[in-house]
């Protein structure tokens, strides 16, 4: 049985007398213990909102969350605030996008690490301190004892993200959600952080949900990838399958817009035309249709369903041909 089951999760934002906005629209996926699942998509596709909904971190007012999120058999969406707080940090950990702002600037790093240890594992000050040193050591922060008494602004960006990962993993959560953990970092540090996450999660039972817009991150880390578009999953496949053979025109477009080392110098990148602003509501058809090179008349009449095709899930009437066929034709 999967550790985390997300079924038909929808998140609708909208205050009274305002047009509601559906940020997440019936997303379903599951994560097994030890598995790494990617949620990929461009800004505004609902990936961060999905993670906040799982953690129960969305504001109460002006937001409607429906569907079901079960963690190890417990429904999370109906838990009380207190019950959720007991689970957060202990069973569910989260690493945020911006390490510069996700640490409290006025208290030392050490307190922020020991805080969660004392809260969930009931360690006393001395034990928590020792454990914190070990944790910082584990995430590759040199001279951890000194760092514990330092403030966030005294650490570099990469170091701060390491500290945040240490905090998120302090209680050995069974599920870790990483929401664009490398976006705010430069490329070399990105690679280090990704390696660190991989190291810490691989070979343990910790499940990881990796949220990113960067397909490179997914390629190095995830077992399974969900591609989101306008709040819905449009394609789900195992990593190799997805990269070798993207079938949804959106996934195909995403991969086509990345520069490759082995492409000819003169080759132009193929961007996806248009922008998210061109979307049509899912009720009227496929939201991606106005930007889609493969769009058919039917695409704007009836929204496509997420259907099994071979070994993957796909939401498209006219998918890109499998790579092997395309190669023969080309």
């Amino acid at each position, binding site marked *: 049985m999967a550790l985390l089951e997300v079924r038909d999760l929808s998140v609708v934002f909208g205050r009274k007398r305002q047009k509601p906005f559906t940020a997440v629209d019936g997303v379903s996926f599951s994560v097994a213990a030890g598995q790494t699942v990617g949620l990929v998509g461009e800004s505004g596709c609902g990936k961060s909102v999905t993670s906040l909904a799982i*953690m129960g*971190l969305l504001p109460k007012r002006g937001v409607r969350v429906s569907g079901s999120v079960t963690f190890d058999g417990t429904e999370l969406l109906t838990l009380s605030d207190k019950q*959720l*707080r*007991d*689970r*957060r*940090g*202990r069973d*569910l*950990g*989260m690493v*945020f996008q*911006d390490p510069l*702002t*996700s*640490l*409290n*600037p*006025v*208290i030392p790093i050490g*307190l922020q690490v020991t*805080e*969660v240890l004392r*809260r*969930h594992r009931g360690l006393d000050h001395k034990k928590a301190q020792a454990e914190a040193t070990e944790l910082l050591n584990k995430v590759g922060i040199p001279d951890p004892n000194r760092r514990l008494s*330092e*403030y966030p*602004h*005294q650490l570099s960006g990469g170091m701060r993200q390491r500290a*945040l990962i240490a*905090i*998120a993993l302090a209680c050995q959560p069974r599920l870790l959600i990483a929401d664009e953990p490398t976006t705010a970092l430069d490329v070399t540090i990105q690679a280090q952080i990704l390696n660190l996450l991989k190291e810490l999660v691989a070979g343990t039972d910790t499940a990881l949900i990796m949220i990113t817009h960067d397909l490179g991150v997914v390629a190095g880390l995830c077992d399974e990838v969900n591609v989101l578009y306008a709040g819905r999953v449009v394609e789900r496949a195992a990593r190799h399958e997805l990269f070798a053979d993207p079938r949804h025109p959106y996934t195909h477009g995403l991969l086509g817009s990345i520069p490759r080392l082995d492409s000819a110098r003169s080759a132009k990148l193929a961007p996806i035309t248009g922008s998210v602003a061109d979307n049509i509501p899912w009720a009227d058809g496929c939201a991606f249709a106005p930007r889609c090179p493969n769009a058919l008349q039917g695409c704007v009449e009836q929204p496509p369903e997420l259907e099994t095709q071979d070994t993957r899930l796909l939401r498209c009437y006219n998918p890109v041909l499998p790579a092997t066929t395309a190669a023969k034709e080309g």
Partner: protein
Amino acid sequence: MTPKLLQRRRERIDELADAGDAGVSLAKDALRRMRANPVAITGAIIVALFVVLAILAPFLAPKDPRTQYAELKNQLTPESIPGPMPGFLLGSDQYGYDLFSRLLVGAQQTLIVGVLATLIGVAVGCTLGGLAGAFGGWVDTALMRFTDILLSFPSILLAISVAALFAETNQWTVIIAVSMVAIPVFARLLRGAMLAQRHSDHVLAATALGVRRRTVVFRHILPNALTPVIVQATLTLATSIIDAAALSFLGLGDPDPSRAEWGLMLAESQQFIEVKPELAFLPAAAIIIVALGFTLLGESLREALDPKKRR
């Protein structure tokens, strides 16, 4: 290499090491920037001088400020008030008190009123603002409407109204009246800062770790929201001093004429301004300089603590 040169090189290296180590806390960093700011230094010197004089006033005053001296009183006529004379540095005031001693002791009076009024304003205002910021919802709405009412009065009018509510005025009614002006300011300020912190990334991160609500408020929200309160408190010291003087000036202060108070001295010397202008000029100048000192200090503190200006 001579030992002196070696010593100098060592110091230089140590200096570089210090600069390389970013080991400065926020407070230290702010202090460092204040030290480099002439405005801050001017403000700090004025405030320090004022505080020292105010505390030591009873020992520094050459004469008893509450005694009407016969040798001064004898010389009082409607056309002349004695100027400086041996033993009386600035001469007499219109009642035969020693003007210099009264000015000194007036500093103490001003400091007490200013500090107490600000403290009450901070304590009550921050309690209200803290409750509003911590709980939000209807608590927030109710408390903020209350502060809106207080804020809708011009500050001096509010202070006068509050002072007028008391059957008899004394030092305490002045302090309470002046603090009433500060309360809504601190309440709104802290509440606003806490609301901003509530939506910050690190508070979300702390919540995502399952940290208890109480801990989130006291450890993650409140300390980050205090900076504007500290700055405002310094500035409020200045306005409190002015407001207190204004109340005395308008006759809503302590009516005891033997108590040396700058606002009262200013008010009562009005009619003698042609005979001896210093009687009005000196207390007025004292009020202005002290208020200016606190304002300069407060403004430079605001600048030093402004995160946007940190390098």
